[in-house]
C-alpha cells in the first residue's frame, strides 16, 4: 500500500490513512462492483476550466453512466443544475456526515445504506474532518473514496496530491471506465 502526505502538511492523521489510488480505473471498477454507490460533491468541484475538462461535467458523466445518485452541498447544486443535472439531494457537509453515520439512512427508495461513497470538491479541512468522522462513526464496511485533487488521509482510498490537469485526467478516466459496459 502506498500513501501520500496530507496536502495541508500539519493535518497529520492517526494510526491509519488512505491508500493512494494511482490508477483511476481501480475506482471505476469499485464503482461498478458497488451495489449502492453515492457521489458527494462540494463547491470546489466547480473550478476554473482545465484543458482536460470540468470536474462537475465529469461527475455528471460518471453519475449518468453508472446511475449513481449525487448529493451536493447547497452552494454546489447550482453548478450541476446549470448543466441540466438535478442532484438527488442537497445537504450541508456536516448533514451528509450525520446521515452517512446513520446505518438506517438511505438515499434511495430501497432503504439500503450506501456501500461506496465518492467525495469531491471539499475545502481541504472540511473534507478532512468529515472523513475523519466517518472513519470512526460510520457503519463498518463502507468504502469512502476521495477523488479530490489533494490527498485526503481519512478515507479508504484517495487520489494522491495532483496538479489540476492530472486530477481532471484521472476523473475523465473514471468516467470513461464507468461508461464502458
Amino acid at each position, binding site marked *: 500500500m502506498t500513501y501520500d502526505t496530507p496536502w495541508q502538511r500539519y493535518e497529520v492523521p492517526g494510526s491509519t490513512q488512505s491508500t493512494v489510488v494511482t490508477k483511476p480505473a481501480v475506482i471505476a471498477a469499485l464503482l461498478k462492483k458497488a451495489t449502492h454507490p453515492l457521489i458527494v460533491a462540494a463547491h470546489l468541484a466547480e473550478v476554473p476550466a482545465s484543458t482536460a475538462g470540468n470536474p462537475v461535467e465529469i461527475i455528471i458523466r460518471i453519475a449518468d453512466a453508472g446511475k449513481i445518485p449525487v448529493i451536493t452541498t447547497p452552494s454546489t447544486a447550482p453548478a450541476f443544475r*446549470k448543466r441540466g443535472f438535478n442532484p438527488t439531494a442537497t445537504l450541508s457537509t456536516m448533514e451528509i456526515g450525520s446521515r452517512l453515520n446513520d446505518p438506517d439512512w438511505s438515499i434511495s427508495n430501497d432503504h439500503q445504506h450506501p456501500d461506496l461513497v465518492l467525495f469531491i470538491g471539499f475545502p481541504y479541512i*472540511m473534507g478532512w474532518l468529515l472523513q*475523519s468522522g466517518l472513519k470512526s462513526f460510520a457503519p463498518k464496511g463502507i468504502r469512502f473514496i476521495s477523488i479530490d485533487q489533494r490527498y485526503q488521509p481519512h478515507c479508504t482510498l484517495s487520489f494522491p496530491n495532483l496538479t489540476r490537469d492530472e486530477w481532471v485526467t484521472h476523473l475523465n478516466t473514471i468516467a470513461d471506465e464507468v461508461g464502458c459496459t
Partner: protein
Amino acid sequence: MLRLRISHDLYVQPDERKIPEMKARVKIDELIGDDIRAHGVELDIGRIIRTWEERPGPTRMPGIGDLREWDHKLLKKYPPHYLPFCDLCCLCTMGKCDLSRGKRGACGIDMAAQQSRIVLLSASIGTATHTGHARHLLERLVETSGRDHLLDIGTSVNLEAPNIRLVTGIKPITLGDLEDVLDYCEKEITQLLACCHTGQEGNNIDFESKVFHAGMIDHVAMEAADIAQISSLNFPKGDPEAALVDIGIGCVNPAKPSILVIGHNVAPSVEITDYMRDHGLEDAIDLAGICCTALDLTRYNNQAKIVGPLSHQIRFIRYGGADVIVIDEQCVRTDVVIEAEKVHAPVIATSCKNFQGLPDRTNDPIDSIVGDIINGKSTGAAILDPVKAGEVAVRLATVMFPKRKKFRAIPDEATIAAAAKTCGGCDNCRRVCPNDLPLAEAIAAAGKGNLSLLGELYESCIGCTRCEGEGVCAKGLMPHTMILGASRIRMGKEKFRVRCGRGPIRDTEIRAVGGPIVMGEVPGVLGMVGCSNNPGSWKDVGFIAEEFLKRRYIVTTSGCAAMQIGMYKTEDGQGLYEAYPGTFDAGGLVNCGSCVSNAHISGAAIKIANIFARRQLNSNYEEIADYVHNRVGAVGIAWGAMSQKASSIAAGFWRLGIPVIVGPHGAKYRRMLLGRKDHDEDWEVIDARTGERVYAAPTPEHLFAVAETREEAMVLIPKLCMRPSDTTKGRSIKLNHYIDLHRKFFGVMPDDMHLFVRTTADIPVAMKEDIQKALRQTDWKEGDGRIPDPTLLPRLVRKGGGVE
C-alpha cells in the same frame, strides 16, 4: 469559648442600596436560655446573601449535574456529530491510544467521549479565561473604586444582570457582590476541569452536558466583568448612540508618537489614557489598540483608535506604527516580543498571565525602567501595576518616536520582486497556510513584476505567519511579509468607523421588540461574534451583516466581529455603523462591546423571557432556556471563530437553546450539534395549554452547524430563526427571507420548505403561487392552524395530566 458554625448561607432582604459589605460573624458575650448558659459565643455564617423581591427558583447556583435533564433534552434533539481532529488520545501516560474505528483507549474511553472531553476542555479553558479576566479586572476596580461602589448600568436598565440573576440568584448591587458571583464561577470551573481527568466521565452525552455548563458559567463571568467596568469606568450604558470611533491601520498618525495596546483587560489602557490626560498629551500621542482591549479602550476614551482585529497584530507591528506595545491578556501573539524587536519597539507586559519572558520591574523606579529600555539594556518590561505601566508607556512613546522614526519591517516593491524571482514554486507555503491561499502563484506573478496577486491576499490572510516558519521555504522567502509589502499603500489608507460598545440592551428596548420577536414579526436576532479566523476576506462578515440589516433583522455584535463589520463599506461607500442605527430594533446594528459584552446578547434573550413574558428569572434557568429555545428567534454567527473562548461563548448560547453557525474553520471544534429534519419524532413539543405533544417542525433545525460558504450561512440564518411559537404572520416573514435567500444564492426554492409551512396562512403572499405549486409536489398536508404554546418541560403544562 463556644464556636458555632452554620454551613448554610443566610438570606437577608436588606434595604437595597444601603447595605455596605456584610460581615458574617456574630460575637455574643453571653448567651442565656432555658437549658443553656454560655459566654464568648462566636457565630460564623458561611455567607450572607442578599435576596430580592422575586422568590428563588429551583436552581440557585447550579452544580455540574443540576441541569443535566435539560441538557439531555437538547442533546436528544441535537445529537453530537463528531469530527475527530486526530485518531489518538495522548492525555495520559498509558497512551497514546488509538480510538479510531470503535477502539477504546487504555482507560476505557471511546472516540465519542474523547471528542466531547476535548470540547469540554476547550470550553473550560474559555470560561476560565473570561473568569480569570473578570477576577483580575474586578480586583483592580475594587482597588480603585471600592467594594461598595454601586453598580450603575444606566437608568434604562433595571435588569442589570440577567445571566447572574438567572444562574446565581444574586441581584448584584455593588462591585463587592460580583466577588460572590466569581467565587461561584471559579468553583464550577474547578469541577468542570476535574471531569476531564482520566477515569472520570465516560459518557459523551454527559460530557456534552458539562460543556453546556461551562458555557452557562462563561456568560455569568462575562456579565460580571462587563457590568463592573461599565459601572466603574463610566462606559456607555446601553446608549444606542455611543460614539463612532476610528478603526484601521491608516487611522494611526505616523507623524505622532504612538502606543499600541493588545489584549482584553482594559485596566492598563485606562491608566495610559489618564496619564495622557493629566499631562496634556492627548493630542500629542496616538493611542491605539488591537482586539478587545481596543474596543473597551474606546468605551473609555473615544479619541483612541482601533487598529483592527487579531489578524492585524503582526501586520501593524511590522508596519512600524507602534512606538511602544503594551500587552495585557488573551489573544496576544506569543511571539510579540520577537516581532516588536524587528521594529525596535519595546514591549510592556501588564498581566501575570502573560509575562512573555520579560523581567518583572513592577517595584522598580519608573526612571530606571524607562532608562534601561531607551539605552537598549532591555527590550521591555513586565509591570503589573497599571498606573506605573501607564506612565512608562507614555514616556517611552515620546522618547522612542524620534529614535525609531516609524521603522518598518516591510519590504518595498522592488525588493519583493527581486526575492520572488528565486521562488521554485514548490507550494510548501500554501501547504502550511490555514486558508490554502495560492501563495506560490502570487509570488511567481510578483517575480514577473505583478504584485497585485499578492495584494489580493491581504484580506484573506489571517496573519498567522505559518508560511514564514523555519524550514518552510527552502529559498528563505517570507510570503506573509511579501503580502504586506505589496499592501503598504492600502494599509496606510485603511480607515473606517465603528460604533464603540454600548453595553447592555435597555429594558425599554426589550419591551418594545419582545413581542414582535416572539411572534416572529421581527424576523430574527443575529449575534455576530467571534474572531478573525475567516476562511476568506474579512469583508464577508460585513457582507452578511448588511444583508440582514437590509432585511430588518436585529444584528447584535461584539469583539473582533464588530470590528470586521466596521471594516466594510456598502456600495455607496458608507460604513455599516454610519448607515444603520445602534438601537436594538428591526434593522439596528448593535455593537455591545468586547468579548465579555457577549453576555448582553444572551442577556437580551433572557430579558425577553423575563421582561416581556414575565417568566420568573431568579434561579430559574431551565424554564427561561425553554422559553428562549422555543420562542426567541435568535442565531449566533461566529464566522471566524478561533479561540477556546469562542467555544465557551457558543456553549452558553447552546444551553439557552440558541443555535450557532460557524465558518469552515469552526469544524475544528470537533463536533456539531445537528438535528435530523427527516426524523419527525424529534420535533415534537408539548403544548403547555393542553399537554398534548404536537409536531412543531425542525425549528430550529440545528444547535451548532458549520457553513461551507458565506452563502450557505446566509441561507441557514433565516431558517434557524424559525421557532414553534411563530404566528402565521411571523412564520410568513421568516419563510419569505429563507426562500428568497435560497433562490438568490442557489437559484431554486429550498427542498425542505414544506416542513415549515404549517398552513396556507404561513405562505408569503408574494410567493404564494410558486410555493403552492412546490407543495403540491410533496406530501404536504395543511395543518389545523393551532400554534402551540411550546415547551419541552412537562411541568409547565397548565392543564393537569396529558403528558408523561
